[in-house]
Structures are given as C-alpha cells and as structure tokens.
C-alpha cells in the first residue's frame, strides 16, 4: 500500500486483510494493546490542520505501540497559522524524511493534492466532507466483533450525510461487502446523488423506515457549525432525526448502535441510547487504535502486498 487516501479506491481483499490483522492488535481483556517493534526506527508525522483529540491520539498510540517515532503537529501554533501554504508546509516536513504523514484537513482532497506532489505515503485521517477511511475500517471491525460477516446486514446511516466524511467512507466500505444500506436524513442533508455513489444504497427521509429491521444503526454527528445555513428548521432535528429508545424496538433485537463521536447528547442521540447495552460506541474507540496499527504496519512494515 502506497498510502491510504480513501476507501473508494481500495480492493475488498485489501480491506479484509487490514480488518483481519487489526484483530491481532485488539487488547485482550484488561491488557493494553500489544507492543511490537515492527516499525522501529520509522518516523511518522501526524499533521492535524483541524482539531481532533481522538483521531490524533489514536494514531499516536498506534504508531508508538508499533515501535515507531511519532510526532504530532497541530495547525494552531504552527507555521500553518502564520500563513504558510499547504505545499510549503508539506515540503518542509518532507525534507525531514518522515516515513509517512498522517493528515487531517478541513478541505476535501487536500491529502490527494499532496499525494500528487510528494513521494511520502500519506494517510488520510479525514479530509473535509470527503472521506475518513480509518473510521470506516474501525466501524467495520466493530461490527465484525459482533457478527460473523458484513454480507446481507442491514445498516442505517442517519444524520447529516451530505457533509459527513464518515458516511462516505462507510458507504464505500459497506457497499463493497454487499450490505443493504439505507441513508436517512432531512432532504437538504441527504441529496439523491448519495444513493448513486456506490451500489446497494438507498435513501429515505423517514427515520422509522430506516431503522426498521436494521442490524446496525450508525448515527452521525450534527455539524453544529453548519446550523446557520438553515438546512432544517431550528429545534426540529432531534424530534425527527434524533435516535431515542423507542426507535430501537423497530430494529432487530440485537441491533448495534454506533456513533463516530464526539456525541451531542440530546441532539442526534438520547443519553439513554448512547449509554444502553446496544451501544458499541466505546468499542469503536478501542478498535480505532487496533485498526490504525494494522494500517500503519501495512503501509510501513514491508508487508509487501500492494493495493494501489
């Protein structure tokens, strides 16, 4: 693997290999993640142009557990905030010869743009409203911890799909595995084109229909910063698209409730649901490290098999 820019361009076999390998890295009972030295001497730069505690920490832990040296740079306080261009920042970093750059950026395509100009492998840790590939991988790992396979599962993704990189990566991944995928949100946040970005996807504006017989419910974070654009009437979101306990009766009894975090309790999901037995939100966080270890190892560890 030359890097990881998105799920869309990945082969299914590549995804399976990462998910299988991630299982080896999961903590066992109360033990922490295994510590290995497969990436000893490697330098990984985490470059976060957008604040993110959980993804950045998760990548840092993953790198360190594999024995790599990890340096994290956040936009605030760096030369980026002094007006340095993206190209100049990355050229400067590339001159320090990292073995990979993990990058989070508010602009869609920023890692793709850089990948065209830099030889260093780039791992996309979320680009604008485009993709967040490691999130989809950890979501799939979390589902597979509870189910034998993804095939034929019914998954509902609910919320601001139009602006969600988590949704796009999940749509691509789940579609590659033959999942019956339903997207749900107000029409302004679930445009019809979304049903055409991958096979096996449909859209409904009715939350109850989306949840009926679902094996998995993925809730998306309501992007508070987009509220001013009047995508829906103020105050009506939770009423029509917030997940509450009574909804869960419509789903399969063993339904899994997921959320990429951070949660807005009472906005897109009620506290009762977030804290219920059906919620696997903390498993997602736990799998974040394991999946990112598998990705880093695959890109940097000389496992040789290439996908793109």
């Amino acid at each position, binding site marked *: 693997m030359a890097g990881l820019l998105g799920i869309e361009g990945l082969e299914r076999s590549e995804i399976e290999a990462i998910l299988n390998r991630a299982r080896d890295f999961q903590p066992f009972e109360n033990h922490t993640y295994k510590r290995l030295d497969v990436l000893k001497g490697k330098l990984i730069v985490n470059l976060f142009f957008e604040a993110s505690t959980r993804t950045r920490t998760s990548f840092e832990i993953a790198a360190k557990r594999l024995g790599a040296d990890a340096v994290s740079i956040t936009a605030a306080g760096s030369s980026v905030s002094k007006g340095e261009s993206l190209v100049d920042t990355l050229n400067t970093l590339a001159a320090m010869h990292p073995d990979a750059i993990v990058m989070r950026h508010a602009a*869609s395509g*920023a890692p793709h*743009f850089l990948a065209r100009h830099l030889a260093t492998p780039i791992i996309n840790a979320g680009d*604008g409203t*485009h993709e967040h590939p490691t999130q989809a991988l950890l979501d799939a790992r979390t589902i597979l911890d509870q189910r034998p396979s993804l095939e034929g599962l019914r998954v509902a993704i609910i919320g601001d799909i139009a602006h969600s*990189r988590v949704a*796009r990566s999940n749509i691509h991944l789940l579609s590659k595995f033959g999942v019956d995928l339903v997207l749900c949100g107000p029409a302004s946040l679930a445009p019809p*084109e979304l049903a*055409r970005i991958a096979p096996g996807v449909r859209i409904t504006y009715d939350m109850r229909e989306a949840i009926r017989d679902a094996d998995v419910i993925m809730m998306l974070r309501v992007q508070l910063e987009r509220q001013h654009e009047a995508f829906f009437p103020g105050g009506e979101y939770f009423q029509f698209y917030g997940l509450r306990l009574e909804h869960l009766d419509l789903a399969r009894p063993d339904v899994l409730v997921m959320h990429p975090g951070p949660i807005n309790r009472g906005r897109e999901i009620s506290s009762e649901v977030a804290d219920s037995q059906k919620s696997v939100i903390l498993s997602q966080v736990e799998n974040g490290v394991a999946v990112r270890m598998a990705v880093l190892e695959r890109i940097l560890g000389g496992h040789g098999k290439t996908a793109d």
Partner: protein
Amino acid sequence: MAKLLIKNGRVMDPETGHDQVADILIRDRYVVRVGQNLHAIAATLFDATGLVVAPGFIDMHVHLREPGFEHAETIETGSRAAAGGGFTSVCAMPNTQPVNDDATVTRYVLERAARSAVVNVFPIGAITKNSAGQELAAIGSMKNAGAVAISDDGKPVMNSRVMRRAMEFARVFDLPVIDHCEDLELSAGGDMHEGLESTRLGLKGSPGCAEDVMVARDLLLVEVTGARYHTAHVSTRRSLELIREAKARGLPVSCEVTPHHLALADADMIPYDSNYKMRPPLRSRQDVAALADGVAAGVVDAIATDHAPHPGSEKMQEFERCPHGVIGLETALAVALQVLVHSGRIPLMRLVELFTLGPARILGLASRGRLSAGMAADVTIFDPDVEWTYDVNRSLCKARNSPFDGRKFRGAPVATVVGGRIVWQR
C-alpha cells in the same frame, strides 16, 4: 504604404459565404481586394497554400488582469497569447484593480494596449461601480471612451432593480449588457458542478439552476427594457433552452459558449485538480451535449474563452481555496475544431462564424469579423488538420492553469495578421 499579399489560401468569409481558394491583398490597415491571381509590387508575400484564411478571430471574453494583477497577466502577455491562438481582437473584462468602471480606466486600458498589445483590445466596462452591484458605473462616458459592452462578469448584479436600470441606460447607448449568470445565493461559493461527482468528492456544489434562474430573470428584464443582452459562457442545457425561446420570440438576445464547457464534463476532472476549477463549473455530460447541440442549431452566437490567468502559487492550494478560472486563448481553435468540426457536428464555415462574425455583430464591430474589400486587415490563417500536442509550459501568457496540457489536437493557427501586419507566426 505597407502591402501584404496572402496567396492561394482557402478564403472563408461567413458574411458573404465566400469559400474558395483566392488571394487577399492588404494595404495598410485594410483589405483592398479578394480575388484570383492578385499581384502587387513591393508587397510582403504569404503563401497560404493548403491553409484556411479567415477574418481575424475575436475573443469577446478575456481577462487581461491589467491594471492591478500584472503578476498574473498583462495586456502585453495576454495579447501575445491571443495572437498565438489566432485571435486578432480581444475584449478585456473590467474586473481589474481598479475596476474599469469609469472612462479614466477605460482610457488607461486603451493607452496601455496601444503601447504594448499586439492585437486589438476592446475594453468592456463595468455595470456598477466597483462591480459592487449597487450604483451604476459611468456607462455613457466609458462608451465614449471606447467601451464596447458592459458587464460585472464574475460579480453578477444580484439586485434585479439595478439590473433593470442598467439595461435601460445601456439601451440609450446601444451597448450590449453581458451577464455572467449565477445566483450567488444558490451557488453559495460552490467549487464545482453540483451532482454525483461533487457528492462523491465531498466538494461544495454549484447547481445548474443557479445559472438558469439568472438567465430567466435577465430575459424577463430584456422583455421589459428592450436592451441588447448577451449571456456569457452558457453552461447548462436549461439556460440554452431559455435563450432559444427568447430568440424565437424576437428578443435582442445572444450568447457565447467556451471551448472548455464544450469539451469537458465534471466527470472528466482529475480529482481535486484546480486546473479544472472555473465558473461556471464544468457541468454534466448532458449539459455538454446540449451545448454542442445548441451550437449546431444556431442558438449559440459566439465562442469565447473566458481566458482567466492565475499564477501557479494561487492554483497550488487546497481545491476549495484555489481561485476559479482557466487560460484558453491558445487552445480555443483546436478544442472547437475537435469537438465541433472533426466530430461532424458543424461545417467549418459555421465554426469560423462563431469566432468572427458572431462576436463582431454582438459588439457592433462593423469592419471586423468579415473578410472582403474595405474591411479591417485582421486575418487569421489556420491549418484545420495539423496534428500537435499542447505544452502549457510553452504558453505565451504568464499563467499555466489549463486543463488541456498534454492533449493531442488536430488543427492550429498558423499566422495572425492584425492591422495588415503579421504579429504572430507558428
């Protein structure tokens, strides 16, 4: 007296329909004769055997960036690129710094052009002061100083009452009003066409209807005011339908399309490559097909490039931060030949018309866009079949922002004659 004799070319004049091998004798700044076996003493000879000899091409939509943005382009460099693309005349859009919103700026552009340009430069004045969409610019004085049309181009007049007043005033001076049709509220800073591709790439979309509603508004205002009105760079099927219907009802309406909108759809974009970012954006395949249909059906009056140079540093950024616009002067003829003529959509004469008589009529340039005795000695000589590859790094303009770099073409300009002088030769 300087004389130029162009021998044995296929002389095409869309006004008279003349299309046969002939000679053209030019003396000073005018065409003296078009005919067989012409001779002249002490004339410069140009052998045009096997080449097309057409009226000088006119690009009615060019951003020369001077004054104010000389790091991107100057009147001199832009005019050299124009000549290299076979254009003998260009219209300079007013979005300079300062904006061309009064006669002082108009005169400045003309003086700079007289000193440094190798082609004719016709300024287009702003519709409103500073193109801010509020107060009308000095339209009458700009016309008297030499402006050939008014437009706020990339900052379209959103206030319909202001647009109505502008049309009423422009009508008094018989100036065409050119509008870049985009409802800025609907487009809301979109970075590409709203559709499957923008959804897939997670980029903000600018919907086709943002263009259509403004075309519709403008046409309704034309009906009220009777102004001569021109839609710049039409990019959607629906806009073209609205224009066709307005023309059928006899309204004084015209429109242009760009080579890039004829050749490329949103799905052709290399993901996040800002050389494909422009306004209006590359539209859907259906829209692209509709534009070629519109050209073939005669709804489209002109091809214009919307040549928009940007320095490399500005285009080398996150896609959403890159400015809109592509260069196009040196690829216009080749792209148009490929999409329209070599594909069999239109005859060569119609293509020549779109580059010459079409824009000349819209702009009221009575002695240009035609090739017969008494007309200005602006001539474009081109080879419709020569094969070549476009290398943007050899462009005569300052910028490099083209989506056609590396593309193989068939057909290219060979020589450009402006005012009786050969100003560029392949």
